[in-house]
């Protein structure tokens, strides 16, 4: 299967129909989501290093353009977005409240996970954001199932997206999920961020094919390839892939090439990342690339950039301080109930 040639992405529409103005607006929105995510994650990292966050901290640094473009290409309230560990910006762009992040990292009981789960292991499944488990690949078939469930319920035209890393494509779950979605011809978009490493393991020890996008072909899935550092390109390709899925062309696999600009987690200095890669085009910082485009196209001035940075810092400051002041879980009032049918719990006083 060759790459689809039809182009109906939002961006193309923007360009053709209205105008420079709407194209510019779309791009600027994207940039601001990226910036907000970066600002938040920088803050989360410093809280972690100050010992204020327990457990792992995994950042999406360097992957904001790719993740944001996916989030923006989907419609909150209609579509499904299943993020993984490097999708803070996609979450924001899709519509996850900023507070969900700070509350979950800081263990506030008011967060969606109520302190039961932490960090990026969060979601709002009833609002189209499934809560990832750590086991890589496992979310792809779950999104497939959500789409199938909607089909059973007579709902069509809604797209589901799941993200994965280069390493995650080696799981059986990735292959089983993609194949199943293809058989059912479901509107699934798999966004594979090839950041060149899975923890310390480089692509060369992870897979032997020339390009991960080639994997789509064997499953009857449409492949897309994109420069994952370039917001403009990511917006173009993701809106195309989402439209293809929405129009009934079955699952789409979008592979973005980029580089993880952090350690695997904040406990890791990533010293094994090759200098050649860091110095290559893959190692560009997508935030800077986006800034450059805005300046070149005269979509924004240095003053605008400063103002947006200040605005992002202010939002993050608010979200962190709010979560910090909120109550943390109390083991004595926690009910330790693990069933929806709570009356089936032994010793339960509400036994029917």
């Amino acid at each position, binding site marked *: 299967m060759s790459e689809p040639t039809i182009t109906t992405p939002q961006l193309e529409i923007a360009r053709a129909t209205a105008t420079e103005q709407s194209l510019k607006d779309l791009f600027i929105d994207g940039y601001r989501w990226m910036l907000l995510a970066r600002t938040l994650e920088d803050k989360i990292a410093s809280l972690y290093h100050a010992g204020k966050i327990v457990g792992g901290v995994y950042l999406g640094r360097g992957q904001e353009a790719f993740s944001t473009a996916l989030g923006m290409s989907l419609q909150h309230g209609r579509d499904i977005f299943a993020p993984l560990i490097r999708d803070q910006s996609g979450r924001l762009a899709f519509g996850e409240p900023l507070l969900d992040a700070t509350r979950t990292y800081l*263990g506030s009981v008011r967060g969606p996970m109520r302190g039961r789960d932490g960090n990026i*292991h969060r979601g709002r499944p009833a609002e189209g954001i499934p809560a990832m*488990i750590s*086991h*890589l690949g496992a979310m792809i078939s779950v999104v497939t199932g959500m789409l199938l469930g909607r089909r059973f319920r007579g709902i069509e035209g809604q797209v589901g997206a799941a993200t994965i890393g280069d*390493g995650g494509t080696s799981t059986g779950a990735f292959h089983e999920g993609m194949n199943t979605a293809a058989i059912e011809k479901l509107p699934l978009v798999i966004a594979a961020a090839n950041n060149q490493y899975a923890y310390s*393991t480089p692509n060369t020890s992870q897979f032997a094919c020339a390009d991960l996008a080639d994997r789509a072909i064997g499953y009857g899935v449409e492949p897309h390839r994109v420069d994952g550092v370039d917001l403009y390109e990511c917006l173009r390709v993701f809106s195309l892939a989402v439209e293809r899925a929405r129009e009934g062309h079955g699952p789409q696999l979008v592979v973005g090439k980029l580089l993880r600009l952090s350690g695997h987690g904040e406990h890791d200095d990533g010293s094994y990342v090759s200098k050649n890669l860091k110095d290559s085009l893959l190692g560009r910082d997508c935030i800077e690339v986006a800034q450059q485009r805005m300046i070149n196209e005269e979509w924004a001035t240095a003053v605008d950039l400063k103002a947006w940075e200040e605005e992002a810092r202010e939002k993050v400051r608010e979200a962190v301080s709010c979560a910090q002041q909120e109550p*943390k879980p109390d083991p004595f009032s926690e009910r330790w109930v693990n069933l929806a049918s709570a009356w089936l719990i032994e010793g339960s006083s509400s036994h029917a």
Partner: protein
Amino acid sequence: MSITYLEAIREAQALALRSNPAVFLYGQDIADFGGAFKATKNLAAEFPGRVKDAPISEDAMLGVAIGAAIEGMRPIVEIQFADFSSLAFNQIVNQAATHFWRTNVPCPITVRLPSGGTAGSGPFHSQSMEAIYAHYPGLIVLTPATVGDAYSMLLDSIDLDDPVIFCEHKLLYYHLKEPALPDPKNCLPVGKARITRSGKHATIVTYSAMLHESLSAADELLKDGYEIEIVDLRSIKPIDTDTILGSVARTGRLLCVGEAFPWGGVTAEVVARVAAEGFHLLDAPPQRLNAKDTPIPYHPNLWAAHRPTARAIAEVLRGMLRF
């Protein structure tokens, strides 16, 4: 000089690589990086080609190990976190565990599972899976609680002709230290429990990190004049029923403590054996203490209440000693 539990695991692997050409290590990020916990640090450089990075394909990792074992190799597989062994479950319980029984060809693999809870690790990086694997015939399941046992039992695992599930506790990795490694020749064999502390008022049967919580609880009770005997199972399967019964015969009271979920499992097995074979020895109903019956919580406040702690163990003991 002192050596940690984690270093003991590394040293055992180094010794095995040095002394047995059939041994190789296989796991994610274990070669140049030395593993997520550094249990294989420097081994790839010391033993070129014999410490291999695996893709994120747990099912294939175990299948490959089993295949190599059939061909006479002695693979040690590191699963990055025990929790991810669920992806290799089929190969472990259906392929490895049944292989010798079905074909008379042994399957000598060692599967290292970094197990157990640590603060902030949440539901998917904290699990204790020994009972799941012990349920299946054909597997040996080991749960070392000391530096010396981590060392000698890992060496035993590699020598054994059966598949071994080696549950090493992440909480012990860096903190637990001993002055030196034991000579494996002087160590207890697999299948033997150890009486870590002798006493006369009650017996705690436990294993892995819960040994240390139990020891603290016993210290606590000593202040009230109670001497608690502690049996460290070391090996979950086979389980040393004789040592357990011998201890209960001395104390008349049994508390079994485990970190895994409460339903079924190691503690239930111990209580069942003592109830069936040593009912006449008991002065009080046998008790068991496990984690709570919910997934393992992320927040440290919840986690500390979810797992058995010295305080919780001491409380149960006090209740039992009132009989």
